[in-house]
């Protein structure tokens, strides 16, 4: 997966340049293009869909305000995810309360009640384990596991060295392996 600027689609680069010139319509197109990814990054960071949507909107507002600082050396997506990660943490800080895991919307699996309850329970435990990670490690894990960013892209997105990406990812995975050991054994 390339992370270089030449991989930035020309159409997207054109939208970015127009947005830099103050074209809010072009920025709207960028919002449409990256909405789902940004919302999901924020959601994985904070664990609440409503909070995630609000923080994602805030992230796009910040992106608009700072878009003239964006250098197309790194993918626009990585730049956005960095803002989104920080917006998620700010949103969590503002709320100053424990994430309401029970209030989260769960996917409908089509399974029976018992199986669904068990699945929901497992998802909640996994979600809690991810949320219990330190924010720095959580951000790296989310970008790798859920957004499939390469190490280079994660390093660009978070402005950290590649070695730090690897160490944070190792730390997060080792901690999750310990926390989720019973569920990992069930999968054998």
């Amino acid at each position, binding site marked *: 997966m390339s992370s270089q600027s030449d991989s930035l689609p020309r159409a997207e680069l054109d939208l970015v340049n127009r947005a830099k010139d103050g074209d809010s319509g072009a920025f*709207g197109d960028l919002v449409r293009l990256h909405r789902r990814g940004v919302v999901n990054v924020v959601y994985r960071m904070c664990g609440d869909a409503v909070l995630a*949507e609000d923080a994602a909107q805030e992230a796009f507002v910040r992106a608009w305000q700072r878009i003239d600082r964006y250098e197309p050396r790194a993918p626009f997506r990585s730049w956005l995810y960095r803002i989104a990660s920080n917006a998620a943490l700010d949103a969590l800080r503002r709320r100053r309360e424990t994430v309401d895991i029970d209030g989260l919307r769960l996917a409908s699996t089509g399974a029976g009640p018992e199986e669904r309850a068990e699945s929901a329970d497992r998802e909640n435990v996994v*979600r809690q384990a991810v949320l219990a990670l330190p924010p720095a490690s959580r951000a790296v894990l989310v970008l790798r596991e859920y957004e499939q960013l390469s190490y280079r892209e994660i390093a660009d997105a978070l402005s950290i060295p590649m070695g730090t990406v690897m160490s944070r990812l190792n730390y997060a995975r080792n901690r999750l392996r310990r926390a989720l050991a019973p569920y*990992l054994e069930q999968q054998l």
Partner: protein
Amino acid sequence: MSEHKADWLGQLLDGEMKGERLAGAEAHLAHCATCRAELDELRRLSVLLQEVPAAEGLASPASFVARVEGRLNGRGRPGFWHRALPVGRWIAPAALAGAWVFLQTLAIAAPLILLAVQAGAGGETLGGLLPVTGESWWAALADLSATGLGDLTVVLDALPRVVVDLGWSLALASLPLVCLALLFGAWLVFWWSRGRLNGFPATAVGDGG
């Protein structure tokens, strides 16, 4: 097995290993059951993480964009100074350093210029402003050298005064630097606090901002 590859397994899983390292890791895995088990556990962890669904019940794309635009209307594009702030953090120290160089150059060059002007004008234009009058400044420097260095006792007598003068000179010379350092520090604190207030922390999840 002399060495397990536990630290590399994540990179292998993520497809981040290439060339000799990849070949070495695969060769190790071929005969290391421990590392194979670890890699398998990492794969299962990844599967388990994927089971957590993405956010659902979100607003439609059109509604989401409309809400973002609604927020943008209330908080438009930042003004010139706001946008110039990141650049300004470099301009400020550069301007301070430039001012210091200018003042130092002025302090060193001014007496020489005055002396040269006086010598060129025969001492009449700036007469009274300078201690040496009526001769060229080359001659004045030669006289100073002859009296100051020719007599050793005079030099020794003058030594304590020279040391004190030198100390004062150093203190006076370093004072502007200290002031500049304080101003630069204050500027960095100002810049950092502006960044925090704007909700764009420099070190939240990343190390830069």
